[in-house]
């Protein structure tokens, strides 16, 4: 029995280690390629040990003012967006968790519905650009992402439902606190884990978002790191399709540069991640529907 359990543990660990390596390998390759010289990439192909070490790609990248501005926008959008998104998600999820809310079923359904269906690209585009006029403003990064994910609202609602004792709310009411005050003074202080989780999740969404930039931002000065990278890749792809049309490729960024931008985009998140990891795991288990 005991040896059986041990075998199981060994199997599980090996499996997880292999899985872990499989996840890491592409990333390591990405970093190595970004540090290889362009000519060695073409003649030797990709390899895990750089044939010719070179930081040319990073020098090229950080020589242009574009990348610093892009970092600035990425940080700004992530900070403002995460804050706003957490506030709005909380304000939506909390009432949904209160059983006495009139029309609760309807509102729940409204949130749930967006998890299954979306408005489609062209209608959303028309709404955001014509009604909300967010094209080529920094709001284009922030507003469409505020509560695009019904899943996050559901996680938070479930947390409020299961982790906040009803008696706590009632005691607040007896003491004459307003609903808003109850949320602020009673509920939020004991909900920090879920807020950290939601913050991390939407922070990642904001940092990694490139699609809003693709559709609503055409002004190069407003690019974030991800949009910068994505446009670079799209250009390369399109140029390849058109190759042979009378255009020259002098300004086309090389493979190494593209990899370097990818590293530049991923690095900040990787630095932050370990500090938030515990909340993240907790949030995931909270997410499972209980009770």
């Amino acid at each position: 029995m005991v040896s059986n359990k041990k075998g199981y543990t060994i199997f599980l660990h090996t499996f997880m280690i292999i899985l872990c390596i499989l996840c890491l390998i592409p990333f390591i390759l990405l970093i190595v390629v970004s540090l290889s010289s362009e000519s060695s990439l073409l003649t030797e192909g990709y390899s895990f040990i750089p044939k010719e070490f070179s930081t040319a790609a990073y020098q090229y990248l950080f020589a242009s003012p574009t990348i610093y501005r892009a970092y600035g926008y990425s940080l700004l959008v992530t900070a403002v967006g995460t804050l706003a998104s957490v506030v709005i998600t909380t304000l939506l999820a909390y009432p949904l968790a209160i059983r006495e809310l009139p029309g609760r079923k309807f509102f729940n359904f409204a949130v749930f519905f967006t998890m299954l269906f979306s408005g489609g690209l062209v209608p959303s585009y028309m709404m955001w650009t014509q009604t909300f006029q967010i094209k080529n403003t920094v709001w284009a990064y922030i507003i469409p992402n505020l509560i695009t994910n019904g899943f996050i609202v559901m996680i938070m609602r479930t947390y409020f439902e299961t982790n906040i004792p009803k008696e706590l709310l009632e005691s607040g009411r007896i003491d004459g606190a307003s609903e808003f005050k109850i949320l602020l003074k009673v509920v939020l202080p004991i909900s920090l884990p879920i807020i950290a989780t939601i913050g991390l999740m939407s922070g990642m969404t904001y940092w990694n978002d490139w699609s809003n930039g693709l559709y609503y931002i055409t002004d190069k000065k407003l690019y974030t790191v991800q949009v910068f990278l994505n446009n670079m890749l799209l250009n390369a792809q399109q140029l390849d399709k058109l190759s042979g049309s009378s255009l020259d490729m002098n300004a086309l960024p090389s493979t190494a540069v593209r990899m370097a931008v990818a590293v530049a985009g991923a690095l900040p998140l990787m630095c932050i991640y370990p500090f938030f990891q515990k909340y993240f795991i907790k949030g995931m288990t909270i997410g499972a529907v209980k009770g």
Partner: protein
Amino acid sequence: MKKRVLSILLCVAMTSALLAGCGGTGDGGREKGGDSGKEVETVNMTYFSFNNFDDTQMVEDAVNEITEEKIGVRVKLNAMEGGQYMAQQTMLLSGSEDIDLIVTPLVTDAMNSGAFADMSDLIEEYGQGIKEVLGDDIEAGRYHGCLYGLPNMHEYANTPMIVYNADVAAELGIDMSSVKTLEDMDSILAKVKEAYPNMSTPLYTSNSSGCLSATYYQWDTLGDNLGVLMFDNPDEIVNLYETDEYKDLVTTLHDFSNKGYLNVDAAVQSDNYWTLVEQNMSFACLINQHELIAQEYTPTTGVNLDYVPLGDTYKTTSKVTTFLWRIMSTSQKQEAAMKLLNLLYTDAEVEDLICNGIKDVHYTVGEDGKYTLPEGVDYANSTYYPNIDWVMPNGWLAGEWEDSIDNYGEKMTEYNDSAMVSPAYGFIFDSTDVANEVTACSNVVQQYCISVEENGEVDVDTALEELNQALKEAGIDTIIAEKQEQYDAFLEGK
């Protein structure tokens, strides 16, 4: 009963759509134009660039000085990054944007939905210059009887050819002028392979982004290779993948593949020939191009390139309509847009400003009259080097750069005029009724082509049979029947 009513309603809706004919001839625009006689209208012109265009505002101001004086129209230059432009195309053409003038590929979907204005009348009134410049090719963008777009000035024909590294050929004593067919390359490639055993791709065919048969062909692809026209059989649309021509091509390529002449990693390789030849990883390339391509890429790659033709030069619809300039049907300033377009086709000064920027700011002129970047500026950090002479209506009017070919426009015009005209020139296939089949068949081709065309390990007959079976199931016969019907009507109308 309900069903019957519904079907009648549908019938009515569909026939009325048919009767409607050319969408958006822009009467609204006319009326407005008449009222505000002297007010200067600003035309929003949307196009794309893959390079640098940060100083577009500066250029726009300079352009406006000229246009306002000459035609009483101002322009808003709306340049977008190329990749982004292609991704946003559907939305740009949805009519929700404030766009008057735009450049797009053929996009039959958007033409069907009435995104563009019919230019037939506008061009008579304001487009005399365009008529002179384009001549008969003005008709290439005519679709269902409406003139939905005007081709820009570029190469209108192409030649199946082999582009090769002339330095290597000279070094190995290879006489490329003896090459008349693809089979003749056999011994030559063997020689190259022997001399450069590390060369990964002696003969470049295609990379992961597409099939060889989409870039190298000796027939009229009619846009997508699903139902093609062989030049020796000008009345019948045939299934390319069942023809002897295709089988011969594939057989030769399989032989080459087995001998190691082709790229073994074609399915994952993303580099193109020009990058590979620069690093001497490739010797020759199989491609349909215009005759100046080798000369054009010589300075870019730093390799002395040359070419041998493998077939006749043909002018086809798909080549002429690579990019079309359109007036949006939602535009309220269609007349102004047409005036501007006319100027862009004929006025060297305006064209030069948009393509190259402002003299002594974005470029300097050498003694020979050719442009160079100012000192200390390179292609990557220039604030205006959009490199869009191949997108603009008439880029040949713009000034020439130091490494470009002398009198490019004249040479290209000569080449265009020398080409044979495909019997299907002017035919644009409306795939509305077979849209599902077209999607399915394109997917099949995309999935099979690299292995069918370039993987020598597979038996040719088995591979072709498999491909054709899959295509049949995806409905290629329906597409060909529909194409044939439309083509017959086209021939009759001619």
